[in-house]
């Protein structure tokens, strides 16, 4: 964030309403790149909103983003949360990790501040019965079944190996995949695990190779999935590899080289590529980088917050929270509505395949049904192109 506008002159202060929105994600440590990506998404949304000269309660609104580094540490969660609350934020986008979001969420709940995460996928987050917690991203128990059923129908494996990185995310996703496969009558090998810092997967893969599975699923991030895929091919495992959203990135090509070709993976929501082309272009223009993963969701989360404020014509959390719960917003990642728990309704899931060094969407899975990507795009094109943000006057 290098080109923030200078603080507004004092004279405007009377008419200007400053609305602060918090964003928290790890900006240091092993997944700092994802954290920064998330922050960029939120930052982009804030700038757009400011450019639109939104008026709430008769005042011109200036949105400010307070970005914090939660270091991936659960015990930092509540502290950051409190810091936001002390700074009187109107709402929070984040956190990135479920393990941090959960302890932070109770602090937000006590203060009545809404939080919308674009990347915490652990079901538990919204199962706590808190009214202020929302997510624009799919849950592990939505995404897992999606990729698993795709594997089951497209590849018809008899035996699948499931590996995870022993994190809340990877393990949770792996468990959902396993459940779906087992339910479909497919055998699953005993779970193998690495860690979020694993680079050497040879031993695990060798063992798996000996059991001759027909497909391999890995729940974890690209930094570990890349080496896993590469080493799997080196060992001569020729079957299909599948991943969750953590490894559903183009980085996989850099990390695994030629071995990357042909893996499949899922993303919660619609693909970054499918995200409004405006988002993609703006992101690229502003940050001189491709969005990595969850930035469309944090971007949307930010917009959803703002949209709810506009609807309620108030930036007071107590007033706009009800609007947030029943929001309907066409975002970069598709249409966003929340169910009673705060989860995204009918969250789309997209299945990708690595082709020629880029992940290409294959299918969209929504409500258990699979639609070919081309068909999805066609049908989307049929309806008038969704503006990135719902106009406030449309009631």
């Amino acid at each position, binding site marked *: *964030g*290098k*080109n*923030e506008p*200078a603080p507004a002159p004092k004279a405007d202060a009377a008419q200007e309403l400053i609305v602060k929105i918090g964003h928290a994600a790890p*900006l*240091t440590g092993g997944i700092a790149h994802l954290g920064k990506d998330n922050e960029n998404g939120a930052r982009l949304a804030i700038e757009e909103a400011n450019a639109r000269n939104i008026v709430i309660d008769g005042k011109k609104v200036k949105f400010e983003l307070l970005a*914090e*580094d939660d270091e*991936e*540490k*659960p*015990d930092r969660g*509540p*502290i950051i949360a*409190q*810091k936001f*609350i*002390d*700074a009187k934020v109107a709402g929070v986008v984040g956190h990135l990790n479920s*393990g941090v979001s*959960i*302890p932070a969420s*109770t602090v937000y709940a*006590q203060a009545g501040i809404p939080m919308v995460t674009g990347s915490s996928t*652990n079901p*538990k987050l919204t199962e*706590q019965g808190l009214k202020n917690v929302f997510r624009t991203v799919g849950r592990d128990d939505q995404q897992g079944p999606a990729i698993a059923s795709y594997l089951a129908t497209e590849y018809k494996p008899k035996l699948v190996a499931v590996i995870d990185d*022993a*994190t*809340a995310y*990877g*393990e*949770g996703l792996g468990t959902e995949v396993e459940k779906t496969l087992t339910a479909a009558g497919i055998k699953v090998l005993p*779970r193998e*695990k690495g860690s979020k810092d694993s680079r050497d997967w040879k031993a695990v893969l060798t063992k798996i190779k000996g059991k001759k599975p027909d497909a391999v699923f890995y729940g974890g991030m690209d930094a570990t999935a890349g080496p896993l895929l590469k080493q799997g091919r080196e060992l001569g495992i020729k079957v299909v590899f599948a991943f969750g959203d953590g490894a559903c990135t183009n980085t996989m090509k850099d990390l695994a080289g030629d071995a990357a070709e042909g893996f499949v993976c899922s993303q919660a929501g619609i693909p970054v590529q499918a995200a409004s082309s405006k988002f993609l272009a703006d992101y690229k223009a502003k940050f001189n980088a491709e969005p990595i993963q969850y930035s469309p969701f944090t971007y949307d989360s930010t917009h959803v917050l703002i949209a709810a404020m506009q609807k309620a014509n108030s930036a007071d959390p107590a007033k706009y929270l009800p609007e947030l719960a029943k929001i309907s917003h066409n975002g970069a990642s598709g249409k966003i509505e929340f169910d009673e728990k705060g989860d995204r309704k009918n969250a789309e899931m997209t299945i990708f395949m690595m082709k020629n060094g880029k992940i290409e969407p294959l299918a969209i899975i929504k409500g258990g049904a699979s639609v070919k990507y081309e068909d999805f795009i066609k049908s989307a094109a049929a309806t008038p192109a969704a503006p990135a943000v719902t106009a406030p006057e449309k009631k």
Partner: protein
Amino acid sequence: MTFTDKLKTNPAALWSGVVLIACALIALPFALAMAGTTWVRVTNLAILFTLLALGLNIVVGFAGLLDLGYIAFYGVGAYVYALLASPQFNLHLPFWVILPIGALAACVFGVLLGAPTLKLRGDYLAIVTLGFGEIVRIFFNNLSQPVNITNGPQGISRIDPFTIGSFSFSQNEVLLGLNFSGPIKYYYLLLLVLIAVIVINLRLEDSRIGRAWQAIREDEVAAQAMGINTTRIKLLAFAMGASFGGVAGGMFAAMQGFISPESFVLVESVMVLSMVVLGGMGNIWGVIVGALLLSFVPELLRHTVDPLQRSLFGRLIVEPEVVRMLLFGLALMLMMLFRPAGLWPSKVRQRELADE
């Protein structure tokens, strides 16, 4: 005559000092809350880490045993609390029952770790304790299969806060016109525990056992020749240190409401050790200073780097988190380079340094 000696000969000054400090400590959270409740939370976490540092100080500072797996005991305490006071097993025991159980469990783990490894010296012990810490964490992370005990990496949520009757430590309450928020209540509780732990530490240090620890640290062979059962005395250090960790862990679980194995990783052990070393191994006050400093410095940087850059350059030049980490790293180095025995070393450690 040292300052403390002077105080001893002047009880009036001593007591007025004590009263003054007590008042300051009692008023502190309200003062902090004015700057932001986040500072109360930061303080609470700092006190929690001070408890850990004081526990580790017994092992490292008093007995001279390098322990890189100390966070495991914190974890044991936290998990004991979480399992006995959460929907996980639908148990909701009161905290004054669980905390001692947690301390005891941690203590047992301390002995389990200590017993086979105490013959090891220096860095070999460090590695074994490191391994032990990792083993404990891996079990936390995996004991969801085949029977679900810890819920694995998903962690345990909705852990009960401390409650006495209908008085809950997590709720806001207005008393005498003052707003007692959850963090403020925990602050007082933590403060009480901290004072107890300090007293215990002070008494241990100045006791037959404390002298034996010091003797072992100085020269194990000579200590044995004096009839000190070094194995037993070292185990005692491990057990004591571990129980403090266990208590802190229980409090952490209750305050946080959610725990997962991520909170008990090696880096945390290293952090607690840094607090002990940086503050001044073996000196209780030094250790407290170290713990507070390492807890507050990153938060202070978090609050100052961004505004400072803006006021200096009008905009952000380097991302604040990068500056924060850089400054933190540099601060660690500089503090140690200029005060190698720690910021406030024990007299003994100062001598050791002067010796060379």
